[in-house]
């Protein structure tokens, strides 16, 4: 039976990650087409009803490894490898995110299995799963099939939507023996928030700042522009890691996902990791001095020029227009 196993990531309060829920829904759909079931793996002491609630997204079974800690990949590789081997499952599917990449990669080595990553869609051909993976800055889509089983699919963030189907999953407790090397990394602190708490998810207009701003001070210009339009300011991972702007404002692979009416990208190159967090914005306007920046490939209006000259004048012009 062509079973598909999904890793259901949760935070310290036990809330499941929406990308994991999306992966469960996708696995349920695909499992239906290849004649199998979708199952989820949950680690940590998560309550019965919370685990069973994954059935609402399409999981038939939930394997719960209570003694395995959440947050680090290698103990979860041990748990997933056991479930896949004990039950003869055919695929593992991950909803993206850093842990999904690490666990999926670890499983590749452990099970000598094929892996695809940054996958945006999965289809069924001749009863087998085929992953669609954009390559070369999304200029081509490779259809990738698997040789033998299991096959491991790591999706791009937000590739799959969570769909509530009703239903409840059977919860099965499992005991997992951890590998010696899986216990050699320990979490000291998980999920630390750095910088001020700002809300970018509810804003209709966002000004996103990237490395092209040149320095932390560049964000002042973005804030003034955002203020003139009644919007908020967001940032790329590079500038957040550099300490220029708070983590809570970060968009992308490890940050937030937004879909405002306007996303104005100032000095943002448009790397895939950022793109996945903002590509569903209704209108994308990019200002960047590099005409080859990938952001111009998916912006509605691209302005090639020096943002330090353009942004202050744009702020003034918008203020004048609103005042007049």
């Amino acid at each position, binding site marked *: 039976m062509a079973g598909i196993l999904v890793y259901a990531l949760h935070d310290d309060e036990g809330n499941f990650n929406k990308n994991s829920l999306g992966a469960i829904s996708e696995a349920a759909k695909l499992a239906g087409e290849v004649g199998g079931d979708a199952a989820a793996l949950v680690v940590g002491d998560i309550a019965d009803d919370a685990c069973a609630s994954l059935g609402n997204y399409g999981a038939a079974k939930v394997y719960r490894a209570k003694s395995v800690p959440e*947050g680090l990949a290698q103990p979860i590789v041990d748990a997933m490898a056991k479930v896949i081997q004990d039950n003869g499952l055919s695929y593992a599917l991950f909803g993206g995110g*850093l*842990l999904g990449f*690490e666990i999926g*990669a*670890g499983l*590749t*080595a452990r099970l*000598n*299995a*094929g892996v695809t*990553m940054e996958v945006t869609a999965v289809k069924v051909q001749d009863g087998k799963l*085929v992953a669609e993976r954009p390559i070369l800055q999304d*200029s*081509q*889509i*490779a*259809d*990738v099939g698997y*040789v*033998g089983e299991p*096959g491991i699919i*790591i999706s791009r963030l937000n590739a799959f939507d969570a769909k509530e189907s009703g239903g409840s999953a059977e919860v099965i407790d499992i005991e997992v023996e951890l590998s*010696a*090397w*899986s216990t*050699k*990394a320990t*979490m*000291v*602190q*998980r*999920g*630390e*928030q*750095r910088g001020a708490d700002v809300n970018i998810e509810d804003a209709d*207009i966002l000004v996103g700042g990237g490395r092209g701003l040149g320095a932390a001070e560049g964000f002042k210009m973005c804030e003034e522009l955002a203020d003139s339009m009644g919007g908020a300011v967001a940032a790329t*991972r*590079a500038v*957040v*890691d550099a300490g220029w702007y708070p983590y809570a404002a970060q968009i992308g692979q490890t940050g937030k996902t937004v879909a405002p009416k*306007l996303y104005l990208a100032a000095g943002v190159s448009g790397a895939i990791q950022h793109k996945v967090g903002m590509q569903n914005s209704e209108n*994308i306007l990019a200002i960047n001095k590099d*005409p080859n920046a990938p952001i*111009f490939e*998916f*912006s*509605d*209006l*691209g*302005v*090639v*020029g020096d943002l330090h*000259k*353009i942004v202050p*004048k*744009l702020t003034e*012009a*918008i203020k004048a*227009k609103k005042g007049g």
Partner: protein
Amino acid sequence: MKICVLVKEVPDAAVQKRIDPGTMRLDRGGEKNLNPFDTHALEAAMQIREGGVIPVEEIVAVTMGPESAYRALTKAVSLGADRSVHLSDGALAGSDVCATGYSLAKVLESESPDLVLLGQQSDDGECYTIGAVVADHLQMPSLTQVIKIDVSEGKLRCERQAEYGYDTVEVELPAVISVGDAINEPRYPSLKAIMGAKKKPKDEKSIGDVGIDAGMVGADGSKTTVIALNPPPPKEAGEIIEDEDTNETVEKIVAWLDERKLI
């Protein structure tokens, strides 16, 4: 402590990359360079050595790739590695992530490092995954996308961004760590280092030298296969303005915003 840094030769960022329609593999012709993400791993190794908390006896740059990849190794040596190891064998051509991770683990095994460092992704594809594949084969703990490393006796304290914010994790050595580009600003090699790089020891290894099972590598040993290549769904090209007269540019932007009722 002995540090191995995994490096890779990638097409230069300025080169238009294409897939060879015959082999369905990346056409690796044209200008090549050291993967920019790997320079952060080399810099991290240098900073651990210069930090002096733990003596670093040796920094070894390790690569797998065709003959031309020696240039990436030479660059790695000019950035601080003491010597280099080049795994090169026709049997490796077409290896996927699974086969590549296995091969790199075998060549690393022959070096017995205390720490393996690598960049979090390569410019030409295999994002985020190789470090964790290699680590499981080597049976070492591993973290990827690390942006801060503090070294102490026998262990590392690492920081990185994960799904819910910043995580701080302690990792016992030996370990495999992939670093993000926010970890440091790589230095430029000195002229002396560039000149000296070619004279540093360089080992050439074939798959037999490090005990790689030929059946597990190359296109035939790989577990994934590219079935087809398709163009992405068409997206209407956006309008592009080149800023020549900024007042005029701003006028155009305001009109565009106004048309869409965004202001």
